[in-house]
């Protein structure tokens, strides 16, 4: 057993509506969607048109910036729509699913004999390559690179996050196979991080470098784990894969078929019965939330989030699950005025500040809405962000370097080590209500453009 890496900094936000340990198998939905917007820095170029027949694993579009990277259909059927936004920007490609599901056939490679190039080619052709993300920048990896290492976080510490030990029950073989694939890509054992006292099956995977972490969110973020295992410096490239995606990769190499089933946690205070749902990636949100949203009082509404409440994307009721989401959260909209709220004791709201009382009841579960609770201001309070970013980084100075577009400083102060999710807690606690995740993404995009 390796030694436990304990992180002191961070914050667990205790919210209402944690998913109970039961899984609902959803029936095949009418339509599934793939969106280039689920990935950073992707410029899509279509490979299909409306009416084309596709199978699971048939390419729908590719990325102009990284031309070998294909984005494939999760199901078989017929392309029913290409939705576009302003300036004809592609929002998503919708596939109407057939009753009989078919997949493109891929060779079942013998990983002991197959070359690294063959493995990469298989992942690219099947569309599963898009699950491999690169640090720095948090973008889809470039297949031409040789990464320093591959990292997988086997747990999620975000508010109401799914328990992957539960979600991946029965997927041990797929996970094992997936890890073998990652070992080929990395040219060495992939790093897998598990949570202390909740290691579960993950700890018994073979051929991996196992690390054990303890602490509060964002301890489950792969970026934070990398920082404590083998930090990224200028010129380094590492790859990261979500643990559920490792299982999908494993299934491809076990069966030669594209099988994008995953288990999603439906959570949040406005859900009737929070539990897990087995769906195919890109499924309509309605297949998960239909009939599950609590009835709202007149004038009240809810926000549906694909992902967790800190980093997820807002989706419409008729929208689709994003490719990277393993959780759907439903919370109340906070579009209400609150009289003299800033003086009120606010017993039902959560704050890390002791000017409120939530620190007195650490066990209490909160029902938080989407109100910003104030107005945007210049940075005033200091020393706060540091407590919620468990890295050897001065966050305030990094943010200010980004605001100033100072590339040298950004590089020196740690832009290579963070993506949006790592600074989400800073954004949550900020009394000046700065949009820090967007700020960091802007900084990363500037780095990509300039370097």
């Amino acid at each position, binding site marked *: 057993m390796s030694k436990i890496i304990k992180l002191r900094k961070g914050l667990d*936000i205790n919210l209402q509506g944690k998913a109970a340990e039961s899984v609902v198998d959803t029936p095949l939905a009418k339509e599934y969607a793939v969106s280039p917007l689920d990935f950073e820095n992707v410029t899509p170029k279509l490979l299909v048109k409306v009416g084309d027949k596709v199978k699971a694993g048939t390419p729908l579009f590719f990325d102009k910036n990284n031309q070998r990277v294909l984005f494939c259909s999760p199901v078989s059927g017929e392309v029913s729509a290409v939705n576009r936004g302003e300036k004809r920007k592609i929002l998503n490609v919708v596939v109407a699913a057939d009753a009989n599901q078919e997949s493109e056939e891929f060779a079942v490679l013998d990983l002991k004999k197959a070359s690294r190039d063959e493995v990469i080619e298989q992942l690219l052709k099947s569309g599963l390559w898009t699950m491999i993300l690169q640090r720095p920048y948090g973008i889809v990896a470039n297949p031409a690179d040789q990464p320093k290492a591959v990292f997988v976080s086997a747990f999620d510490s975000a*508010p109401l996050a799914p328990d992957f030990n539960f979600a991946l029950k029965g997927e041990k073989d797929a996970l094992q196979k997936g890890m073998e694939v990652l070992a080929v890509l990395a040219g060495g054992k992939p790093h897998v991080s598990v949570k202390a006292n909740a290691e579960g099956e993950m700890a018994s995977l073979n051929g991996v470098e196992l690390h054990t972490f303890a602490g509060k969110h964002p301890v489950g973020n792969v970026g934070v784990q990398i920082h404590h295992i083998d*930090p990224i*410096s200028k010129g380094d490239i590492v790859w990261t894969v979500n643990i559920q995606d490792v299982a999908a990769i494993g299934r491809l190499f076990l069966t030669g078929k594209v099988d994008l089933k995953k288990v999603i946690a439906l959570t949040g205070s406005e859900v009737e019965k929070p539990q897990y749902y087995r769906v195919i990636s890109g499924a309509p949100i309605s297949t998960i939330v239909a009939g599950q949203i609590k009835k709202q009082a007149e004038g009240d509404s809810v926000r549906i*989030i694909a992902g967790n*409440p*800190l*980093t*997820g994307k807002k989706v419409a009721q008729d929208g689709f699950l994003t490719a990277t989401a393993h959780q759907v959260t439903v*919370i109340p909209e*906070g*579009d*209400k*005025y*609150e*009289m*003299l709220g*800033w*003086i009120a004791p606010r017993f039902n709201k959560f*704050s*890390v*500040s*002791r*000017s*409120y009382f939530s620190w007195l009841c650490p066990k209490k579960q909160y029902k*938080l*809405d*989407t*109100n*910003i*609770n*104030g*107005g*945007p*201001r*210049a*940075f*005033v*309070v*200091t*020393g706060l962000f*540091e407590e919620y970013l468990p890295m*050897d*980084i*001065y966050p*305030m*100075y990094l943010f200010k370097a980004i605001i100033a577009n100072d590339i040298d400083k950004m590089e*020196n102060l*740690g832009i290579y080590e963070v993506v949006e999710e790592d600074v*989400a807690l800073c*954004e*949550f*606690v*900020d*009394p*000046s209500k700065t*949009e*820090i*995740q*967007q700020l960091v993404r802007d900084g990363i995009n500037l780095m990509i453009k300039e370097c």
Partner: protein
Amino acid sequence: MKGLRKIVDNVKPTFVEGGKLGFLASFFDAIETFLFVPNTTTKKGSHIRDCIDMKRTMFFVVLALIPAFLFGCYNTGSQVGLEGFTAFWYGLVRVLPMLAVSYVVGLGIEIVYAQIRKEEVAEGYFVTGFLIPMIMPVSTPLWMVALGVAFAVIFGKEVFGGTGMNVFNPALVARAFVFFAFTPQMSGEKVWFSDWKMMGATDATTGATALEQLATKGEMQWSAMDAFLGFIPGSFGETSTLCILLGGALLLYTGIASWRTMLSVFVGGLAMGYLFQAVGMTEYPAYYHLLVGGFAFGAVFMATDPVTSAQTNMGKYIVGFLTGALAVMVRVVNPAYPEGMMLSILFMNALAPTVDYFVVEANIKRRNNRVKTVK
């Protein structure tokens, strides 16, 4: 609540840009957000947010100032020979005009600037405006207060870009302006005592402040306990170390002020005081420095200003310590000017970014070295 909201909603169109009174948009917005936390929801990034905001933060600083303010009222009366509730009442009446001038002039300028920049009015001045009367001698003429406030807000804050961007603590800029622009009126003995004859206030037997007595004679006429409780002449809110510490406790408990800064200012002051005592330059005990003059007030409420103090944790220790040490040094070594706290804090405000610069550089170096050791 609904009725009030209706009224606000009804008049709102008049005050938005393009409305009849559109030039008052920032002013209206300040009042509206004072009454109601806005219904703005998150658009990007984290969908949920901590319920703390700038208003709450600043409100708690003002709350922390209340004990010292109340005692200041009482002490003002007691210094002109009044007792009990009359003394308190006298002091309150005496200070209210100054407080009013401070807020009207300061907020007025803030609102104009917010309107020019098309921003919301920042809350910083609620604290600054409360601080200014507390660090002025009680007989400071109102027009001087107004001038000091105007100078502080415009040249101490707004020219840098407003709250959060300023280099120097605005309240101290006001104090320094008044002191250096009107030195004859602002020094001497009279200014520390109220000059209003009402409610039976006697003509005070004016005398030197504790600081001046220590500087010239090496002793003071009051006991250390009197100085700690605050029954000595001085600026309106600075005399009672006890009440200041009460406010300080609230700031530390809520985490709004940095304990690192606060602690190291006291440590720095004590260390310097003991040093002077050890080499024989002063005869009174070192802790006297923490009890008289503006040391405690500065340490708790001014040096801890997050905007103008150091921003890194290491920087806070260093800047805090130097602030305390420097204040005592000015007091002891400079015979012409017995109070060192104001100048010390302003000087360290100027130095804090440099200290932070070196702390951050050390971090960069450490992070770059990390590469070599790992590979």
